[in-house]
């Protein structure tokens, strides 16, 4: 169990022989990206917040924070999260209603005092904060819609008596603001809920802030995925990149092609039914998280071949089929007939504007061994350049998916092998070797990029490796202003070779939190000591 601030306080007092300084006596601190000293000595494990200030608990750090010494009290039995006057959203906005209940629980969860009652006459000295009013400024709040890459997540939070106000252009910003507000409320030594008067102006630095989960190497039960979405919301992540199928297993239960999971899943209970998928999408939506599914082809498709005959390329040896299969067969028309139907389904099941089409690590050896493929290569004039065959395939898929009005995300090889991409195709840079140069190339060619290369969280190592993820500066690549604008964000990847429900949560969190702040907060929020302080508090809170 993770104790509250009590642990850090006790230790600091223990070791330094100091009396703990209550937060109340700390003077105004204006935080504008916290420019601090450059030197970052290894923070001792126990020299934590002896004199904690409220911002020592915010994660990710907002763009602009001002807190005051004056504290307000919250009574669980009286405090309410409500729609404010002038908001375009009201009680019919299911997303906000759900959020109000959820954040009430997060703030007061373990408190027992729930029954409504008037403020006692002989109350504590601090004034009471009665409400947080949420005001959505957009004309049409869009409470039933899904978040998009272009959604606004900005918000303005004013905490002052008697009522705090959270203003946001869109509901997505309100969700972000509610998370921040919940991080401001703290408990004192006597169990009272307090919040410092504050003003916060916040918005994300990058619009695409994702976490990749791999449900093919190991099946992840629904509960794991939903718990992870909760954790993502605590860290203001807004994209779940669902790498749902791969070589090892095909857990996605397709409506048009039920055999894919019948034959390709690890077992009949280790699948995601359409209901499961809908649940994930809605659970994510209520947290302002987009779900981008990845159906990776033409490589990484061994499991597809179990339920779909004649999809994969038969490999040959000395003129005879060996019985094993390679990537998707790019020369048969049936392949594209299948993909047309399949992606029609995917386009309707997944509401996000984007679908990830994969395209990574295609092994050409099987293609090279297959006589029909060799024949096709000759006919097309590709010579011996199989990258051209791969691009031929990918271009067809891009066309298919475009025809369903979906944008596409691809892994970097698709770009590297010179396939003709659509102008709005997003390229995900994942190869660690000299990724800055790749970013320059991709953005220089006019494409949008998402960065994952330094954030492969499945590559565990001993010690505080969150620091190395935190210290990445995504825009550290040679390029013009225009180019830098094309880097729209990044994704922390947790590949599943060594991950399942028994270790997903402790492996991903709070390491992914480092990536979360890097993608949300200002570029000058880099001080590791300050981050350590806030991250340790945040981690305990997440538990």
């Amino acid at each position, binding site marked *: *169990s*993770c*104790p509250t601030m*009590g*642990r850090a306080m*006790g*230790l600091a007092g*223990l*070791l330094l*022989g100091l009396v703990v300084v209550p937060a109340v006596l700390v003077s105004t601190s204006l935080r504008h990206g916290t420019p601090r000293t450059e030197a970052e000595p290894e923070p001792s*494990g*126990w020299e934590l917040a002896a004199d904690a200030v409220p911002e020592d608990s915010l994660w990710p750090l907002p763009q602009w924070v001002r807190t005051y010494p004056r504290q307000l009290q919250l009574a669980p039995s009286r405090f309410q999260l409500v729609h404010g006057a002038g908001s375009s959203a009201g009680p019919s906005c299911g997303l906000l209603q759900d959020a109000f209940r959820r954040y009430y629980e997060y703030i007061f969860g373990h408190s027992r005092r729930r029954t409504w009652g008037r403020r006692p006459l002989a109350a504590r000295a601090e004034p009471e904060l009665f409400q947080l009013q949420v005001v959505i400024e957009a004309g049409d709040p869009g409470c039933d819609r899904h978040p998009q890459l272009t959604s606004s997540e900005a918000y303005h939070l004013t905490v002052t008596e008697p009522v705090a106000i959270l203003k946001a252009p869109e509901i997505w910003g309100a969700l972000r603001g509610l998370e921040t507000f919940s991080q401001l409320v703290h408990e004192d030594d006597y169990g009272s809920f307090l919040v410092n008067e504050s003003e916060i102006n916040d918005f994300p630095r990058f619009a695409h802030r994702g976490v990749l989960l791999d449900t093919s190497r190991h099946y992840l039960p629904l509960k794991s995925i939903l718990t992870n979405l909760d954790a993502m919301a605590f860290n203001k992540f807004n994209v779940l990149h669902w790498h749902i199928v791969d070589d090892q297993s095909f857990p996605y239960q397709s409506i048009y092609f039920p055999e894919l999971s019948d034959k390709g899943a690890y077992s009949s209970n280790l699948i995601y039914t359409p209901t499961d998928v809908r649940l994930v999408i809605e659970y994510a939506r209520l947290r302002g998280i987009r779900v981008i599914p990845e159906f990776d082809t033409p490589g990484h498709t061994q499991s597809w071949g179990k339920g779909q005959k004649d999809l994969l390329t038969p490999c040959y040896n000395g003129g005879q089929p060996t019985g094993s299969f390679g990537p998707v067969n790019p020369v048969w028309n049936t392949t594209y007939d299948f993909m047309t139907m399949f992606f029609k389904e995917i386009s309707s099941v997944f509401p996000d504007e984007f679908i990830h089409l994969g395209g990574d690590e295609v092994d050409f050896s099987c293609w090279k061994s297959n006589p029909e493929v060799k024949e096709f290569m000759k006919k097309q004039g590709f010579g011996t350049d199989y990258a051209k065959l791969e691009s031929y395939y990918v271009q067809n898929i891009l066309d298919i998916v475009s025809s369903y009005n979906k944008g596409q995300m691809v892994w970097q090889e698709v770009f590297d092998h010179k396939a003709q991409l659509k102008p709005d195709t997003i390229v995900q840079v994942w190869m660690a070797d000299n990724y800055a140069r790749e970013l320059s190339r991709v953005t220089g060619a006019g494409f949008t990029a998402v960065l994952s290369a330094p954030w492969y969280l*499945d*590559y*565990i*190592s*001993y*010690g*505080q490796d969150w620091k190395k993820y935190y210290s990445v500066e995504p825009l550290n690549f040679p390029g013009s202003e225009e180019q830098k604008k094309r880097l729209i964000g990044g994704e922390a990847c947790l590949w599943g070779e*060594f991950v399942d429900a*028994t*270790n997903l*949560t*402790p*492996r991903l969190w709070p390491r992914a939190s480092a990536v979360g702040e890097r993608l949300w907060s200002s570029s000058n929020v880099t001080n590791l000591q300050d981050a350590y302080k806030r991250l340790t508090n945040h981690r305990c809170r997440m*538990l």
Partner: protein
Amino acid sequence: AENEPSWEAPCTKLLVHVSTPGCDGFPSLDSNESYKLSVSKGSMLLSAETVWGALRGLETFSQLVGRDENGTYYINETEIVDFPRFPHRGLLLDTSRHYLPLKAILETLDVMAYNKFNVFHWHIVDDPSFPYESSTFPELSKQGAFNAMTHVYTASDVRSVIEYARLRGIRVIAEFDTPGHTLSWGPGAPGLLTPCYIGEAPSGVYGPINPIVNSTYQFVTSLFQEVSTVFPDFFLHLGGDEVDFTCWKSNPEIRAFMVKMGLGEDYKKLESFYIQRLLDIVSSLGKGYIVWQEVFDNDVKLRPDTIIHVWKENNLQYLNEMANVTRSGYRALLSAPWYLNRISYGQDWIEAYKVEPLMFEGVPEQKALVIGGEACMWGEYVDVTNLTPRLW
């Protein structure tokens, strides 16, 4: 169908036969854990010298039972003769860097039993916290635990661990590591730790246990008197690792002591001075002891039955250490290649598996002095949220 196995008459009993009585005793280093398991048509027999062997045999038996697609439980005819290669097969848990709730410890003991581990090395206190509730010195945990109400092991908790372990044939060896790794002892035992100096004045910071004052040895005697009674195993782990001499060097009284005793500038001799007295105290309490390798490396005078715990790993140097320790006639425990807290990507179990503890230069009599080893899960980055998947 043709190839279906024909089930024999169902087996209804596993007979367990133990030669030597002793159900209420504790396992020890000398316990016999051998067993024989015989499963044949009409009879299943598990026979062992002692109850400890019977426990090992039961675990094996449970691993032999399978279940087919119809849900039928079955077992193949089997003959097994089994005994451990090494008598000391341990696991170290660190409950000072992070407190581990009782449940986590008990769960770990269960999994240890599945894997035939037989020693729980409880590194119970250290610099960051002192969760052990001492009846003689209650202030130690009151002042030294992360939270004296919630992050402590009461006498009853400790008894629970010892009994839970015993029922699984697991010995509990407690480690009260001194003279270093004792910062958390300071607040509850004023005057125990060495005050560090900056120039002429105390800096307010403390170092290892103060080896030059009598009060230290009075304290240590009383504490280990209690610990010897609370923990029934013959052995105690006394630590003795990573003693930082800087604080001692800075303290004028200690410098004066060094001169008086003719120890020169060799603070290893001061460390030995302390350790020797500690070992005498613990011996007089009727306990044997295990110490980390520094105690051997620093030439402390040890009793011949001391067990040296080899932990330093640097390019397979530990094999040399094992050779040196055993050549000097001491028994050795190996942990160096098994620091499981040092995680890395991929199937790192393979490296741990490939270790051959006896792969060092030495005669058979030396090799016989290697009594086993311990997998260590230090707690700097481990608590109840990640202990189990990191360890198993």
